[in-house]
């Protein structure tokens, strides 16, 4: 019997290596796998590259991982936001590399990695400094920039309900980057608010089929914080 549900967060994050690229779901505080991020701090992996839309806020979650000195580089679209003090300090101190990627290009690069597409041409950012040094090409009368797939070693995902095969559904705007990142990592770990019995999720409404998921851990986290 396939059972991807593991007993605790330590088991969910077992084996994450130093130097890994970690895809972290969530947009703002909604759909952020905070328990897994805290678990990653416990787990101890360092020299990480984090891919996330934001660079953390306050002193919890991603900000706490940054503050713990575990992150070498962050790839995101919107590093500065209300409360991104940890990011700002580390960045100013030269202790954090930053790659800014337009939000849609970020999502599409992650999708490309999950879908086996090596690279793609997007009109986004053409003629701007975010296209500096990138190849460009006129396609169908329009200038495009070449962008490469962005895979992760690990994806940390928050779901609303998940079953033992790893099928997931999300809740409202908690979906965001989570299903995209789930497709793009060698090890996709899901923290789920609820565990569903196999067959309880409507096959027409499953957002992330279990094929993309390696481990599921039950974290009845409650509402987004912050």
């Amino acid at each position: 019997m396939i059972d991807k549900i593991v007993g605790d967060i330590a088991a969910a994050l077992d084996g994450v290596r130093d130097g890994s690229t970690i895809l972290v779901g969530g947009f703002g505080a909604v759909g952020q796998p905070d328990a897994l991020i805290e678990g990653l701090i416990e787990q101890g992996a360092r020299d990480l590259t984090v891919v996330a839309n934001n660079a953390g806020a306050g002193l919890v979650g991603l900000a706490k991982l940054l503050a713990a000195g575990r992150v070498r580089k962050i790839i995101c679209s919107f590093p500065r936001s209300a409360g991104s003090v940890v990011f700002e300090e580390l960045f100013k101190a030269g202790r954090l590399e930053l790659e800014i990627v337009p939000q849609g290009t970020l999502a599409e690069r992650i999708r490309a990695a999950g879908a086996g597409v090596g690279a793609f041409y997007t009109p986004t950012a053409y003629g701007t400094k975010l296209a500096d040094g990138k190849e460009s090409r006129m396609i169908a009368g329009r200038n495009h920039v070449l962008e490469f797939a962005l895979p992760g070693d690990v994806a940390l995902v928050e779901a609303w309900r998940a079953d033992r095969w790893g099928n997931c559904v999300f809740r409202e705007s908690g979906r965001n980057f989570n299903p995209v990142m789930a497709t793009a990592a060698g090890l996709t770990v899901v923290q789920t608010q609820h565990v569903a019995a196999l067959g309880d999720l409507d096959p027409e409404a499953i957002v992330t089929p279990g094929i993309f998921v390696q481990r599921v851990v039950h974290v009845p986290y409650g509402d987004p914080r912050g």
Partner: protein
Amino acid sequence: MTDVTVLTRHEMARRVAQDIPEGWYVNLGIGIPTMVADCIPDGREVLLHSENGILGMGAAPAPDQINPWLINAGKQHVTLRQGGAFFHHADSFAMIRGGHIDLCVLGAFEVAENGDIANWATSAADAAPAVGGAMDLAVGAKRIWVVTEHTTKQGAPKLVERCAYPLTALGAVSRIYTNLAVIDVTREGFVVLEMVPGLTLEALQAQTGAALRLKDKQDV
């Protein structure tokens, strides 16, 4: 200028909302653009899109009816209308990049007479600017309207011949709503469609960094 009543931020948002017809799919940027949502007349079905995977956003919730799972791209709590839908980020930006959004309303630091827009970084030296979805929206939506004060707080023009700030997108903007005027961006440059009462073209020109002309009657 003493007799001129400039529009408030809310009036600017309301002026934009007037021009959005029923049936359009619209993405609203942060700031004044977000305020447009509450200015769309009741009963006019305009479908609001948010980058974080929402189509059919409704009004802001009452304080006691906040759903912590439902935020817009500006991280404000919102509601979902009947008929709305959720989807993931790649699908959301497929809608944007794929030209399915009829209109995106953005704020801007500068708009050039060739339609270039700068709205994400305040200097080329800023090493950590937050671009978010601005570049995707600026190239992807069918039309980009900018809503902004006509000048900076220091009185410097925001409508210019060429942008000095780092660009968001080239030639993207088709219309600008300011606290003083509504201006089209055309192949011939800025064309003034309307001004607030009491304002002269000369006075408007004095606060604008590129040549303006009034729309001819026969342009209509």
